[in-house]
Every structure is written in C-alpha cells, then in structure tokens.
C-alpha cells in the first residue's frame, strides 16, 4: 500500500525540489550574496585612508604653499591654473582649492565632508609653515575593533538584503509562474486546501532561509571575522520572523499578477526604496529626521537594525522587540491581505 504524506509536506517538498532544480535560483540566492560580500569587503578593507586631493592655484605663493601642504599626511596637493581649477573642483577631482594672495582663500563645497576636512588640514599646514606654534601636542588612538568596522556594518546588511530578495522573488516567481501555467487552477480543482498551498511556500522558504543564513554568516565569520555576538536563539528567531515577513510581501505582490513582467516590476518597486533607505550599504542616519519614522517602519530597516544589534552589540530579544514587532506586523498584514485577494485562476 502506498504511504501518503500530508498535502503540506508534499507541497513543501515539491516547492523545494522545483527551487533546487533551477540553477539560476541557486546562483542568486547563495552565490551572489557571497560575491557581493567578498567584493565589498575587500573594497572597504582596513587601510590608511586615501589622501585628499587638493589644488593650489598657480601664482606667486603657489610653490611655497605646495611644499607646506605636501608635508601633511592627509593631503595630496598639486598646482593648477584657474581654468583647470574650476573644472577639477566641479568634477570632484580636487576637494579644495587654495587661492588668494598673502592670506589664503579656500574654495570648496561645504556639503562635502572630505572638503571640510581638507580645509582644516590645509589651514593647519599653512599656518604651521607660516610659523604658528602648537599650544600642545595631541596624540591619536585608532579604533578598528571587531563590531565597529565597515565590514561589521555590511555583513548584517547583506544578510538582510538577501533575506528580502529571496523571500520576495522566491514566492512571487513561483506563484505567478504556476498561475500562468494554469497550475493554480488545476490545484484548486483538487480537494487541496488553499491554506496548505500558501503554508507550503512559507515552510519551503524557511528551509532555504536556514541554509542561506548559515552560508552568509559562516562566510562572514571565516573571511572577515564577523560573528554573531548575541545569542544564536535570538538571531534565529529574528531571521525566521524576517523571512516570513518578506514571504508575506512576496505573496501579496504575486496575489493578483498574471505575468512575470508585472510581478517583476512590482517586486522592484517594493524593494528599491528599501535598498536605498534601509541601511544596507550605508547608515540611514543621514536622511532627514522627518522621514526617519517611515524608514524605520520598512521591514528591511527593522531587520537590518535588529541584525546589527544582535550580531555586533549582542542585543537581547527584549531590546530588539520594536524591530520584531514591525516585522511581525508586516508578516501578518501581508498574509491576510494576500490571502483575501489571491487570484487562483
């Protein structure tokens, strides 16, 4: 006699088999995030900061100023004429232009942090060359602890971004593909419970989420020494709730779409703001205060913030409760609405 497994188990297995038999999917889910982490990790590896290129306007004081500025460890001066200077400043090839006669005139864009740094540094160098004596001599302590490097910021961000991408694409493609092939219609022509079909999507997603998270975290740990400082249980709960939230969003955007093009457009529309605002590659602290509450309400922001808190600052479950609440709210809302408006035919 044939042993029958429950429909949820069979549907989950079917979904996982379909996924693993799609080579492109394997690349985007497992290989791509590692390549991204690797290339960004090396691009931003620890090294002395680049010298800031600045210009010295040709003229009677140019030569002596150039010599004085060259002594600064952070400046890279060169002599430019008026025409060159204008272009170089505009194109960002130099951050600062030193002009003026006896007293120097600093020409720069005040919104650029490196230009402001260059102005202070250049002024110090010129003042010293002109004979100013320092009142005291300060020393420096350089910080590059585990947990405060750029790569420590980047790895949780990449993990969050990956969970978002695979959650949304994984569900959206499979659902719309099944709808286009009239497979959804064929399934509702059986006694299958609709709930089971959607549950199977969540379960298969969680299966891959575990593999995906382990791969990214292990890679970050082995290659960049980025670990999970907080408890693994808290980390796991966070990943699962985050994963479910994005599965729900995937379900919602694919609940009515009839073509792959339509669902791709919708997925990009949903993900684009989060790629930019949710602090994957850089902190969202620079955005105006007025829009920060909206940014924090985005699921990827909540996930990234909480991942960083747990991985870098060893935060407890209680201290990431606000982020977990945001993710859980997204998960529930998207599932309820998605189920309600789902188009089976």
């Amino acid at each position, binding site marked *: 006699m044939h042993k029958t497994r429950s429909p949820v188990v069979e549907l989950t297995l079917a979904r996982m088999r379909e996924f693993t038999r799609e080579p492109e999917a394997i690349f985007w889910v497992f290989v791509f995030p590692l390549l991204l982490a690797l290339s960004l990790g090396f691009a931003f590896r620890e090294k002395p900061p680049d010298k800031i290129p600045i210009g010295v306007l040709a003229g009677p004081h140019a030569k002596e100023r150039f010599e004085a500025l060259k002594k600064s460890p952070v400046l890279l001066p060169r002599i430019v004429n008026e025409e060159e200077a204008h272009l170089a400043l505009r194109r960002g090839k130099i951050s600062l232009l030193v002009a003026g006669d006896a007293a120097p005139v600093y020409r720069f864009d005040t919104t650029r942090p490196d230009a402001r740094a260059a102005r202070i540094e250049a002024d110090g160098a010129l003042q010293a060359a002109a004979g100013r004596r320092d009142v005291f001599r300060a020393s420096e302590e350089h910080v590059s602890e585990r947990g405060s490097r750029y790569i420590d910021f980047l790895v949780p961000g990449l993990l969050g971004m990956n969970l978002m991408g695979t959650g949304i694409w994984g569900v959206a493609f499979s659902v719309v593909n099944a709808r286009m092939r009239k497979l959804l219609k*064929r399934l509702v022509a059986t006694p299958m419970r609709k709930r089971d079909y959607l549950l199977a999507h969540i379960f298969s997603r969680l299966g891959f989420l575990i593999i995906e998270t382990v791969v990214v975290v292990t890679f970050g740990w082995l290659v960049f020494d980025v670990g999970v400082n907080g408890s693994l249980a808290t980390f796991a709960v966070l990943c699962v709730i985050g994963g479910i939230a994005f599965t729900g969003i995937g379900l919602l955007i694919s609940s009515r779409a009839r073509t792959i093009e339509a669902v791709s457009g919708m997925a990009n529309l949903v993900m684009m703001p989060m790629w930019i605002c949710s602090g994957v590659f850089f902190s969202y602290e620079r955005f105006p205060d007025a829009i920060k509450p909206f940014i924090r309400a985005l699921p990827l922001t909540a996930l990234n913030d909480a991942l960083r808190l747990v991985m870098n600052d060893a935060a407890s479950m209680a201290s990431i409760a606000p982020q977990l609440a945001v993710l859980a709210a997204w998960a529930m809302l998207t599932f309820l609405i998605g189920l309600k408006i789902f188009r089976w035919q």
Partner: protein
Amino acid sequence: MPEISNLAVSCVGLKKHYADVKAVDGLDLSVARGECFGLLGPNGAGKTTTIEILEGLTPRDAGDVQVLGRTWEHDERDLRDRIGISLQETQLSDKLTVIETLTLFRSFYRNGPDPDDLLRDLSLDEKRTARVGKLSGGQKQRLAVACALIGNPDILFLDEPTTGLDPQSRLQLWDVVSRFRAGGGTILLTTHYMDEAERLCDRIAIVDHGHLIALGTPRELIAKLDAPYIIEFTSAPHLDESDIRAVTGCRGCTRRGDAWQLRVDSLAVAVPQLMGAIDARGAKLVTLSTHAATLEDLFVSMTGRELRDA
C-alpha cells in the same frame, strides 16, 4: 432522458456571458452515471466554459448545476474528492518528475490507487523518474489524465483530451478512457473531433454559439441527417444549384469554394444522374468522392460550417 436519481451531472438553463459574448446561452444537459457523454462543437462554441462551470471552477450567470446529486455551493470539498479533472491547457511543473507529480496529487485525495500502479496502467512507468518538462505531448497528456484518476473519481471531466496529439497518442488515451468507462466510471468530455466523439461517447451533445443544437447517441444523430450518403465533387465550369437540386434523392447541397457537397438517399441513383447533369452542361468532372454521413456532415448541414474551422 435518463432517470433523475441516476444522474452524475445535470444542468438546467445554464447561462454565462463574458463582456458582450454569450459563451453559454441557456443549456440543459444531463449525464447518467456510467455514461460517457461528449460535448462536441467547434472552437468558441462554449464547450470549455460549460465544462468548467460543471466542474465548479467558473461561476455561472444563471441556471442550476448538480453533480452527483449535490451542488458546488454546498458540497465543494466533498465533490472535489469524487471527481477528476483534466483542464484544457494545464502545464504541470516541468521541474518535477512524473512520480513526484503524481504523488503530490495523490496526497490531496482521501482514496486512490498507488501512483506506481497507475503509472503502469497508463504505460508511463518507464518515464517514472523523468522530468515532466522532458515528456512528449502524448505523455504529458497521459500524466494529466493520471492526475485526474489518482483520486479514484466517480466522474472524469476531460476538456479536449487529445487536441494536438499524434494518432498513436490519441489511441492510447482513448484506451485509458474506455477502461475507466468499463470500470463503471462516468465521463464528460469535450472535443472538436467527431471521430473521437463517435468512438468514445454513448451520447453526444452538439453545441454551437452556446446553444445545444443536437443531442443523442452517435447513431441517432447521424440518422437525423435526412440522407445517409455524401457526394463531394468539383467540375469545370461548375454547375448551378438548380442542376444539382434536380438530382433524384438529393436532400440538400452546400457549396464551398469550387466544391459542391450533396446529401443523397442513394449513391447508386445519384452518382449517374450527376454525371449526366455535368455532361449536359458540357462541363468536365475534376474531383469526385463519396462517403457515409458522419457527425461532421450533420454539423455542416445544421450550421453551414465545418467543425474544425467554424
């Protein structure tokens, strides 16, 4: 008309329209248990809409539908467990194997055969571990029917089961349907192949533009055609209708392009007369063929169009 208590499927006054097209326009049908019933008609006749309403997949605008004495509104889950469906254009998942697909469908039903046994019955056991995407059209269609049979259904709904298949695959599929019928199962199928309907069906409903235009056993339907033989010919120059009408025993004629088609009582009487008429006109016979009347001829005589290209 079969007895009511014995009905597998019935509908009364069925109506469905899309935008301004009346896909189904007041259809009454009843299918007895153990019967193979065919909906025959050209593309766009409303066959698929009708069968999908009966399958509980498409909502209707008006009319009553009963399946196994129950309604979709009250007993959907139970009915789903007792019927098997093959839709017109389902593509099962390419990435799954044959046995995985069938095992998945098996899990939805309370009762049913072992998937491996069913594959053997449908001569798909050699393709057991092949991906669905690698199957031929005929094998895919047999797998679709296997998915319809895996719940051990009382009624099998097949929407154009052999469209686009090669002759050998059609025969294999007909064999599957016949065996299900022999085992006491009820079948409702749609087709636009008259030979398929004649071969498989106990009774046939011919539909056109959402209307029932004829209903009966294949034999009864052909008997409705007032003449049992068909002559088709072309001549140069061609004959006028009055010349053809004058042939003794000619019950009617239709012209398509250069060819005339006559429905006659007797070939022995009509053919010599026709030759005489052609001679009398000083024309030459170009082609001539005759055959016993079929469902196709019935459709042509009732609508003036052919099943295939209507």
